[in-house]
C-alpha cells in the first residue's frame, strides 16, 4: 500500500481547508450520515431550487478521507441538476467498487478521482463513500 496515493495533496487540502464545512442558509434538505462501526458522522445540508442544487455544505466529524470526500463531492455537485448529481454518485460508487473503470467515464468526477485508490484499502472504503451515500439517501427522498 502506498500512502502517497491515499493521502494525496487533493485529499489533505480538502481535509484541511473546510471551505464546504458550514451550514446552508435556507437549506431544503438536511440528511444525517453515520458509520456506526467507526463513529464518523456528517450532516449534509442542500438547497435545491427548481431541481438544481444551488448550494450545499456539511458539518460533523470524521477522518481525513471522509471529510475530504464530503468536501470534494460538494464542489462537484454544486450547480448541478438533481438527475446529474445522482449519475455522479452512481459513477463514484462504481469507481470505488471497481465496476466502472473507463477513464473517460471517470473524468467527470474531477477531484473525486483522487479517491480512486481507496479501493486498495478496504478498511477505509466506508469512509470515502459516507457523504455520497448520504447525498443519495437525501436525493431519493425528494
Amino acid at each position: 500500500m502506498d500512502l502517497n496515493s491515499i493521502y494525496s495533496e487533493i485529499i489533505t487540502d480538502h481535509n484541511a481547508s473546510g471551505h464546504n464545512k458550514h451550514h446552508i442558509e435556507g437549506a431544503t434538505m438536511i440528511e444525517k450520515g453515520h458509520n456506526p462501526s467507526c463513529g464518523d458522522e456528517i450532516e449534509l445540508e442542500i438547497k435545491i431550487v427548481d431541481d438544481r442544487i444551488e448550494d450545499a455544505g456539511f458539518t460533523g466529524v470524521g477522518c481525513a478521507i471522509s471529510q475530504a470526500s464530503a468536501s470534494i463531492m460538494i464542489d462537484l455537485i454544486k450547480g448541478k441538476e438533481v438527475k446529474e448529481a445522482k449519475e455522479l454518485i452512481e459513477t463514484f460508487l462504481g469507481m470505488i467498487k471497481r465496476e466502472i473503470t473507463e477513464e473517460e467515464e471517470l473524468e467527470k468526477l474531477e477531484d473525486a478521482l483522487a479517491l480512486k485508490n481507496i479501493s486498495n484499502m478496504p478498511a477505509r472504503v466506508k469512509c470515502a463513500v459516507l457523504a455520497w451515500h448520504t447525498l443519495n439517501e437525501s436525493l431519493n427522498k425528494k
Partner: protein
Amino acid sequence: MDNILLDFPILHQKINDKRLAYLDSAATTQKPLSVLGAVEEYYKLYNANPHRGAYSLSVKATEMYENTRSKVKNFIGAKKEKEIIFTKSATEGFNLLAYSYGMNFIKEGDEIVISIAEHHSNLVPWQQVAKAKGAILKYLYLDEEGLISHEEIESKITEKTKIVSVIHISNVLGVINPVEKIIKKAHDVGALAIVDVTQSVPHIKVNITDLDADFAVFSGHKMLGPMGIGVVYGKEEFLMKMPPFLYGGDMIEYVWEQEATYGEIPYKFEGGTQNVGGAVGLSAAIDYLNEFKMEKIEELEKELVSYALDKLSENPHITVYGTKDMNKKAGVISFNVKEVHPHDVASILDSYGVAIRAGHHCAHPLMRYMNVNATCRASFYLYNTKEDIDQFVNALENTRRWLGYGSK
C-alpha cells in the same frame, strides 16, 4: 529473537514490507503454537459430542471439556467447577446474566449501577433489563484521570441498588478500577456484584474468591485462547435459583410433550453442543499463562506502558487519556494525535507495520463523556517488546506530516 516470540509465528511476518508490531491485544491476542496445536490435536484425535455417547471418543471429549472447567476454576481462584459456565463470548455471558437474572429478579424502580466506562457488552443488556422491568440504569462517572472516586461509589450505590456491574480494567483507558471497594459497597446495600474481568484475567492475577464477586465474565480469545469460548463465573447460590438462558439440547433433565426439567448447574446454562475445541484451546492457553507466570506479565506490561508513556510525552502533538499512575494502570494506552483523526493514524501506522485500534472501542457513552469522537488505542501483552514501542512511537512522528501538517 526472544524465545517467547518463537511461540507466536504470526508475529514474524512482514506487514506492508515492515516488521509487524502488534499492539491490539485488548481486541484479541495472538495464539501460541501450543494453543493451535491443542485445538488441532483435539479435532484430529478426540473430536466427538461431549456428554452424550457411551463410546470412548465421546468420553474423551467430555473429559477434555470438563478438565478445562476445572483449570479455569483454579486459574481464577473459584471454589467449585459447577460455578464455571462456558459461553461463546463475554457478550453472551452478560446476556446470560441480564436475561436469566435481570429479567427475573429485577423489579420496577430497582436500580442497576454500572460505570460510564463499560464496554457495550456490559451496558446494552442492562439497558434492555431496565426498559423491560421499569428499572433505572445509573452510572458511576469518572474523574479527570478516568478513575471512579470514593464519593461516586458511596453516592450512587444505595439501598435501591439491586445489581452493580463494573469493568475491572477499562478496555479504553487501561485504568484499574477499585472493584474490591465497589463489590463491598454493593454487598453492604444487599446488591448483586458483577465484574467484567475480560481485560484483567489475561493480564493480572485475579482471585475471584478474594474479590468476593457474585458473578464475573470474560472471554478466551483475549488470553491467548481461540475465539468462540468465554466464561461466566457465578456463585452457586445465585446460579441455583436462576432459570436457564438458552433452552434445548444438552441442558435438560427430562422432557415431556408440554414440560421439561433442566439439568444441574452448570449444564442448565450450556444449551446446545458446546465449543469443545475452543475449551481445549483455552486450557492450553491457561497452561501457557501459568508457565509464563501472571506476575511476570503484569511486570512486563508495566515496564512497556511506562516506557511508551515516557516516549509519547516527548511528542507535543499527542494527548494521552486516563491516569498515568502506574499503580492504577494496565497495558492499554488511549491517545489522540492533534488534528489527525484516529482512523487516519491507524491507517498510517499500518503502513509502518504497526497494528493499533482506532475508533470508539465499543464504548460510545465513554467517548461522549470524554468529549471525543474516537481515540487511538495501543495495547500490550506478553509477546510485546520495547522494539515494538520504538517502532510505534517512530511511526507516530510521521502521522501529521502525511496529513500535510508541518514536520511532526
